[in-house]
Every structure is written in C-alpha cells, then in structure tokens.
C-alpha cells in the first residue's frame, strides 16, 4: 500500500482535492442557475419585444375603472391599479387574520376535547378531525358558498334580528357605528382604561412575587375596560351613532355588510385548519409527560393552575413550530378565495388586473412576492415567539 503522506500529489490532479472540487462544483452550479435565469429572461425579453407587448410597472398608476365588492379602504372606480393592489392585499389579510383567529380557538377546543376523559366528546372531536382534514379546502369553500349560503333567502325575506341585524343571500347586515359627540371622550377613556390594566397587571405581578398571592388580573381588567368607557359615555354622551341597515330598492343600505364570500372562505378555512391545529394541540399536550401533572398536583396547585402554569407552557414549545406552518398554510389557502369571487389579492390583482392590462409577468411577480413577504414575516414572528418561550437551560 502506498503511503499518501510520503507521496503528496502523485495523482494530484486538482479534482481530487475536495476543496478545489467544492469550488468548481459551486461555480458550475451558480453558472447553471445564472444560465437558466438568463435564458428565461432573454426569451421573455425577446418574446415581449417581438410581439410588442407592453411591459414595466407604469400600469400601476393607470385608473382601474372597475368596481370591487369589498374594500377596507376608500375605493372608487377612478382609483389606480396600485390602489386595487392595496385593496386586494387588505382583503387577503382580513381573511387570513379572521381565519387564524377562529381556527386557533376551534383548534385548541377540539384538540383538548380529543383528550377529554369523556368518551363521547373525544370521539366527536376525532370525527371532526378525520372528516375535515381529509377533504380538500376548495371543496369545503364551494360547499359553504354554493350549497349552504346560496340557500339563504332573498333580501326581501331576510332573517331579521330585532330590525337591526339582517341575514340574507347577499350577506349579513349589521348596524355600523359612526363617531358621534362622545367619540373623543370614548377614545380617551379607552386609553385610560388600557393604561390602568397595564398598571394593574404590573402591580399584581410584583405582589405575587413578593407575597405569593394571586390577583384575578383578567377579570379585573375586563371590568376596567367596560366600566371606565361606560362612565365616560354617560357623562360625555354616546360615542357612536348607529347606522342601521334598511331595505331600500333592491338591497339593504347603510350599516356593515359581511358578504357571503367572506363568510364562506373564512368558515371553510377555519374549519379545515382547525382540524390540523387540533391534532397539533393534542400531540403537544401529550408530549408533556404525566409526571409533570403529578408533580404539580403534589405541590398543591389547583387544576386550572396546573393547566395554565405547568402543562400549557411546556406544550406550547412543541405546538408552536407546526402551528406556524399551519398559519402559513391558511394564509396561502386564502388565495382560494379567487374561486368564489371574494376580492382577495389573487382574485382582483392576479385576476382582474392581469386581464385588463395583459401584463401577466408583472402582476404574477408582484402577487408572488407579497405572499413570500407574508410567509416570511409570519415565520420570523413565530420564530421570535418560539425563542421567547423556549426552555431556558440553567
């Protein structure tokens, strides 16, 4: 056998040196990626130029000229495509936030129910999970939209709740508040109340650390939040006028309307995602060993405190990472709204605007980058939170 040490580079072609090889390999890879990128770019350029297709982002400043069903900011047909983009984005965020909120609550409830000692409840929870996570979300959206909400009555035969809330095929009509004379007093009261709650929480924590006694912060805070603004409102007058929806002509006017498209997509996505969250929660709670519960009990903690102070903080560590990816999935799935005409980003921007301007590359690129940005920010946020609650090794 040869001794490699005595004969340094006998077969010493450069390629046998792992370092050199790594460099060559990486340069090749970068070259390939750049090559492919350039090839696609070049083709696109050539195609656009040859066929005389307009390109660039100037279209964002052109007037859109079409109406949008639901807009969280002021929008009229004369506004620009740029504003259409913002409207779509906000609608996407609305669905995402609502969906995440509801899915989390339902998911936690079902997840805990899955572990309930009550046989029936745990079976029902299992049934819920197995049914809803195995049916495509798009189908669920269609089911809610086309099969359930389409069966609502026409505006003239609305289900009414005390002449202020109406439900029909066009949506759920709620009275909407507009600022009245007491509005500013109300805002001031709210700020004071929130400040009071923060101070209370801090005081309670200090007291707990010093004396070991608990103070029911949550209930007290809720009390403050209700009582202080109510007192101010009594003194300064009602903070809001309520605009009540009224049936005029074909439709209800005034008030807020929750459109059925929003309801369908939010319901479907929440129910679908909640099934996954429930499984995550179950796994998370089961991951906390039973010894922890027993130890806590032997310390004399009450069941509520065991759950809140011992089980949940530990379970959260297991729960958070997969929960994050479920949140991301929900945000991405909100793009399915396009299928039922809810004016989200994909529907109005990657759909209507693309069609009106014909600038496919620009609109799709913008849409994709928005989703990337949202995904990235949720990941960052959840990573930060995850780090905050991570086990501190002592």
């Amino acid at each position, binding site marked *: 056998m040869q001794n490699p040490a005595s004969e340094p580079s006998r077969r010493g072609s450069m390629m046998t040196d792992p370092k050199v090889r790594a460099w060559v390999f990486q340069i090749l890879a970068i070259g390939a990626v750049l090559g492919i990128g350039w090839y696609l770019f070049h083709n696109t350029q050539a195609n656009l130029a040859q066929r005389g297709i307009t390109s660039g982002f100037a279209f964002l400043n052109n007037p859109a000229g*079409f109406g949008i069903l639901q807009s969280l900011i002021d929008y009229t047909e004369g506004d620009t495509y740029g504003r259409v983009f913002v409207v779509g984005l906000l609608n996407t965020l609305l669905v995402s936030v609502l969906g995440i909120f509801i899915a989390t609550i339902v998911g936690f409830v079902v997840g805990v129910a899955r572990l309930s000692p009550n046989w029936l409840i745990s079976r029902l929870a299992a049934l819920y999970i197995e049914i809803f996570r195995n049916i495509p979300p798009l189908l669920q959206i269609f089911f809610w939209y086309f099969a359930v909400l389409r069966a609502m009555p026409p505006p003239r035969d609305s289900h009414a709740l005390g002449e202020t809330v109406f439900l029909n095929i066009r949506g759920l009509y709620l009275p909407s508040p507009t600022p009245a004379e007491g509005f500013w007093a109300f805002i001031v009261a709210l700020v004071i109340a929130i400040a009071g709650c923060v101070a209370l929480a801090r005081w309670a924590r200090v007291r707990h650390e010093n004396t070991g006694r608990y103070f029911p912060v949550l209930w007290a805070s809720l009390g403050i939040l209700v009582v202080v603004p109510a007192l101010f409102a009594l003194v300064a007058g009602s903070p809001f006028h309520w605009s009540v929806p009224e049936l005029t002509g074909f439709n209800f006017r005034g008030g807020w309307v929750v459109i059925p498209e929003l309801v369908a997509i939010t319901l479907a996505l929440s129910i679908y995602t909640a099934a996954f969250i429930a499984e995550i929660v179950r796994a998370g709670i089961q991951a906390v060993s039973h010894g922890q519960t027993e130890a806590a009990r032997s310390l004399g903690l009450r069941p509520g405190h065991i759950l809140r102070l011992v089980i949940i903080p530990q379970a959260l560590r297991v729960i958070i990472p997969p929960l994050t990816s479920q949140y991301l999935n929900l945000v991405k799935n909100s793009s399915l709204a396009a299928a039922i*005409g809810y004016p989200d980003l994909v529907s109005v921007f990657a759909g209507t605007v693309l069609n009106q301007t014909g600038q496919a590359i620009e609109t799709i690129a913008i849409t994709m980058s928005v989703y990337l940005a949202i995904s990235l920010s949720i990941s960052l946020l959840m990573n930060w939170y995850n780090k905050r609650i991570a086990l501190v090794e002592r």
Partner: protein
Amino acid sequence: MKTVKTTLASVAALAALGLSVPASAGTTLDAVVKKGYVQCGVSDGLPGFSYTDQKGTFLGIDVDVCRAVAAAVFGDAAKVRFTPLTAKERFTALQSGEVDILSRNTTWTSTRDAGLGLSFTGVTYYDGQGFLVSTKLGVKSAKELDGAAVCIQAGTTTELNLSDYFRSNNLKYTPITYDRSDETVKALEAGRCDVLTSDQSQLYAQRIKLANPDGYIVLPEVISKEPLGPVVRRGDDEWFAIVRWALFAQINAEELGVTSANVEQLAKSSTNPDVRRLLGAEGEYGKDLRLPKDWAVKIVKQVGNYGEMFERNVGQGSELKIERGLNALWNKGGLQYAPPVR
C-alpha cells in the same frame, strides 16, 4: 451514476414528448400547413359561440370562423383543433403561439390591439353590453337599477363599461365578480345579484341556460360597443390577411347571394364578375393570399356564408333566436361590410 443518468434521460425524453417544437420558425401559415391543422383558441362553453355537443364536437360562430380558415388553407374545414381557454389565459395563449387564431368572443379595444401584441382581423359579431334581470324585480330600464347588485365576469371589458355607465348616470351598484360566466348565471338565479350584465349575445345564450328562462328579461339598454372578432399575433401580415379574408369571403358571399347550396354551381356557371372573382373562376385572387384558387368556394361550401353561419348558430335556426340587427349586411340596415375581391 448510471441509474441517475438513465432516469434523467427518460425524464428529458418524457418532457420532449409533451413539448412540441414546430420545426419551422417561419410564418404562421407555413407552420400551420406543416402540422396539418389550424390550432384555434375558443371559449370554454358559450352556447351559440363556442360549445361542445354530447359527442364533444365544437360548435358555434367562433368555432366556424376557425373552420372557415381551415377550409381556405386546407380545403377541409375539419382540419382544425380547438383549445378551450379561460378569459385569463386567452391572450397569453395566442402571444406564446399556443394557438394560431384566438376566436373567443373577444372585444376589439385599442389596448388589446396595440399593447398586447395582437391584431384583430375583423368583426364577426357586433355586440353591445346589456342587462338580464328577473321579471320579478319589475324593472323596465337600466336607469332603475340604482343600488343593485350586479353579477359580472371578471377581467372583461364588461366590467369597465358597467362602472362607466353607472357612474355617468349617478347610480350606485355592488359588483359581484366571478371568473366564469356560468357562475354569474348561477349567482343570478340564486339571487346573489339582481342583474347580470354581459354582451347581449351572451345574455341570450345564458338565458337559455336558466332553469326558467321566461322568468328573466333582457333590458332594452345597450351600454357599450362590443365588436367581437378573431385575433392573431401581430407581425405576421400574411396570416393576418388570411384570417381576415376568410371572414370577408363569407360576408361577400352572403351579399352576392352565394350559399353553401349553390356555391359549386355558381362557381361554374355564374356570369356576375364579382361572384366569379370571389369564387376563383376569374383571376388569381387566392394566390396573393397564398391560398388555392377555390379557397372561397371551400369556405362557403363547408361553413356557409355569413348569413348561414349566423342563423345556424345564434339566429333563427338556433335556440338563441337572436335577430340580425347590427349584424345584418350594410345594404340591409346593418354593419357587416366587406371590401370587394378584386
């Protein structure tokens, strides 16, 4: 690693099967002749314009426009393949060469003609936007539609006209948009919206899709100009001319009284110089278009003249029963006018 290479090779080969690379990078006509058929982009289901029957055969005016081109090029109207396209895909499909002609009830506008690298070859159907409402509403005119919820197909010119019309008349409306036209119909039927707006021709087509067509009426107002026509890629004048003249031949044929029944006989025996020129009995007019001499004969024989095509698909011979109206010949009070063959 041998297996890796084999796998890669098979993947590449498999991909190659799906990719079809027409060998000639020449003109569209050459490419079409070489592959042996015209690839035509049509709508994904609109009675009268482009729809499939039980057997999956495509029928309709938009379909016939492509069949006429195939008849002119190959002498056989059957040498055409159809690609159903959504409103969203249609322009890219044409721009990228996926289809040779886009004949999909597409409105001719300046942006589309100039900014998208496309050229409209003519007008197969002069349309205008109208409103379809339930008779239960008791509405007689579009002016009474203040506050209505309106169903529209997303990304069409209709969407823009609608907002123009309501704004200029100081009316309010709620737009309910769907990607596909059949969904707008479904929504109207369910009562999600009060009004359905679309090109009038489509309204008639969609009305027969309703469970109770008599419960709905088309309002008299026409709020826009919607000239619908076939589209080709810009920059290939030869192909542009063929598609344009295939339609003109049909219109000229109607004007000259040439029908699918008498075309062969007229080609032999007609003494009218216009007819003789059109049908190739006199002169070599097809040659300029790089088409056979009897190109127009084939079109009229296999597809019919414009009038026949109209009546068969959307007129009295169809379920839609649309009047000729604007689409009558210019000498009969309509707008259909074709330059002469000479």
